[in-house]
């Protein structure tokens, strides 16, 4: 593809058993300095892709190139890729210092230089005091930092992380997200990060590739991914969204006329729907729905449930036969006061409603 690509997956396939594809036709190109996140549900092939990139798994078909070289042709220890494993994989029989010194010793660095670099790397992750401890004597978060420092201490240009925060509690996870982000900005390394937590992906990445069944559904920046999902799967997987099922009646200038659930008529951006008469999924973000008739598409609604969340109020409503239609009302000074059971109207603008592929 482009010659700025640092990491490139070119029609990559992976099969463990020769029958089913764990990764099916993966194309991805990652420029230098990017924070690329592979996001997807369990079993969608994220780890497999990462392990192939790290050289631990063979590529069944296609090619992965790192800086123009095919990784298939280089033994893993010569790739110079830092890897942070899901369970950290800190060597249990070595202290933190020895763990960090290992990659430098292997590179035959001088003793004083090794000490210097290890100290520097530990300071970078605020672990200076723990150098003489064994991994088993560290908390989960501390082990995580040590693993991070070890993956960075030999200054690789590419760092792979496979759900590195999966084992941490929420507060620590958010803190570490920030730390990793800071290190990425500070060091300018290229990061390929695997997670199945969409909020983690949104906060950290410069680009996100959404995986489903071994192939990429959409590959774009976090904002685009949230604002402009291209498939119903992505829309559902990233953030909250309301789905309505309908049939395309007419497409005109990028706007589709859709009959929704045979109960109403609406207009939506024709993003990913086929021709007239085919089924489609309409996707509307809850924060883009108005109570009342402000928007272009209006429908009757019944309030089912109200949840007060401080900064906003979550309102579950019955709309067009669905009783799980969510509306988020900001807690503004003039917001409407609804009651459960109340009959009202919801509306949204055509540009906030996307007509996507029909989910099976």
């Amino acid at each position, binding site marked *: 593809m482009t010659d700025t690509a640092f990491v490139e997956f070119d029609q990559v396939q992976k099969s463990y058993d020769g029958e089913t594809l764990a990764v099916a036709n993966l194309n991805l190109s990652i420029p230098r300095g990017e924070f690329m996140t592979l996001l997807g549900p369990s079993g969608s092939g994220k780890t497999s892709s990462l392990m192939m990139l790290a050289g631990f798994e063979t590529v069944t078909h296609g090619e992965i190139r790192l800086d123009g070289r095919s990784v298939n042709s280089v033994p893993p220890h010569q*790739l110079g890729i830092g890897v942070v494993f899901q369970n950290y994989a800190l060597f249990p029989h070595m202290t933190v210092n020895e763990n960090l010194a290992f990659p430098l010793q292997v590179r035959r660095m001088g003793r004083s230089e090794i000490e210097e670099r290890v100290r520097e790397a530990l300071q970078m992750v605020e672990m200076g005091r723990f150098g003489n401890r064994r991994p088993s004597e560290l908390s989960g978060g501390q082990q995580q930092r040590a693993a991070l420092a070890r993956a960075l201490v030999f200054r690789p240009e590419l760092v792979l992380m496979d759900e590195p925060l999966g084992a941490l509690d929420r507060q620590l996870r958010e803190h570490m997200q920030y730390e990793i982000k800071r290190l990425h900005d500070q060091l300018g390394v290229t990061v390929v990060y695997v997670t199945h937590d969409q909020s983690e992906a949104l906060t950290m990445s410069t680009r996100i590739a959404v995986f489903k069944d071994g192939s990429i559904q959409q590959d774009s920046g976090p904002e685009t991914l949230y604002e402009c999902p291209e498939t119903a799967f992505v829309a559902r997987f990233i953030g909250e969204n309301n789905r309505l099922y309908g049939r395309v009646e007419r497409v005109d200038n990028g706007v589709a006329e859709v009959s929704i659930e045979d109960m109403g008529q609406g207009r939506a951006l024709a993003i990913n729907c086929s021709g007239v008469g085919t089924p489609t999924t309409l996707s509307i973000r809850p924060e883009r729905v108005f109570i009342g008739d402000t928007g272009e598409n209006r429908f009757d609604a019944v309030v089912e449930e109200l949840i007060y969340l401080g900064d906003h109020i979550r309102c579950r409503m019955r709309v067009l036969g669905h009783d799980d239609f969510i509306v988020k009302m900001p807690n503004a000074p003039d917001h409407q006061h609804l009651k459960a059971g109340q009959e009202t109207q919801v509306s949204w603008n055509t540009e906030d409603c996307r007509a996507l592929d029909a989910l099976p």
Partner: protein
Amino acid sequence: MVRRLRALGLTIPLLAFLFAAFIIPVLVFLWQGVHDDTYARYMSHSTPVLEAWDGVSEPTEAMYAALQKDLVQARKDKTVGKVATRVNRELPGGRSLFTSTARRAARLEAPYREAMIDLKPAWGRLETWQALRVAAARYTPTYLAASVDLKYSGDGSIRRQDEKRRIHLTLFWRTIEISALVTIFCLLLGYPVAYLLSNLPQRSTNLLLILVLLPFWTSILVRTTAWIAILQGNGVLNDLFVAFGVIGDDSRFSMVYNRTGTLVAMTHILLPFMILPLYAVMRTVPKAYVQAAHSLGANGWIAFWRIYLPQTLPGIGAGVVLVFILATGYYITPALVGGQDGQMISNLIDFHMRRSLNWPLAAAMGFVLLVLVMFLYWLYDRVSGIDRMRLG
């Protein structure tokens, strides 16, 4: 507290069984190594006199008289043979001295001293009486001393055994040597197998594991004799060598009825005891460690030596201790394929148990072997720590 007691209660049957079927017999047997009252039981008159004697002064007429009385009685009770056997262990030639004197003891007349010396000049020698004194003692270090090639004499001194009677230390040393070699061979052969087992998909693992365990299902005798068929002078292996022209027909290797035979057969038989603990530990070593080592720039050799091997040390420790301790006690295999220089200490113990019927000496040797193994175990603990040993 109650729960603890209940848990303890569940182990009582096993403890009781171990106590009755293992600990007590072992203690009784070891007891025999230091306690022998054959003489004291049948020679009731001379025993107290011998015990009172200082072991260096001239034997008195009273001692001769007491002995004469005992000999007459022993001949009548037909126990003289047992006593003679006991004395013979302390005094070469003691058996015939005893039996022939006993035969004529009834006809001897006072003073017994002159009469007995007349009959057999050996009665005039101090060593004869010192040997009797050793035999008369109920508690004696003589067997323990003998099992490490020392001689305990009636005058209370302990000296090294005569040159040509020193066989035990050599055998103990050889036992350790053979056990150590077998352990090393088992480790070298078993480690790769265990590694393979722990890295294959489950289905193939089960099949291979059965192959590893297969030897357990055949009798040890069958396996050992199979090795004879393979290794002997005109056995399978030599035939193959000759057929392929590796060696001439007249210079076949002698691989059995010597130490080679013992080493080969024992390594084969003990191999599973090395493989199983290794496999159990290796299975728990996550793949990610070696992968991490590779990603950090270590080649296969460094990743193995510095990362993988240290993680399997608990398994190595368990396998080594298991195989070594089992090997020190082996005797069927060396007996069948060991020839002269492949015999181990257990074979001698067996000899004394079944042939020479010298149970006290067998017990003493067993005791020394036990102490030796416990010492090595202690040494191992000091060096690498038992708590780091894992059987899986």
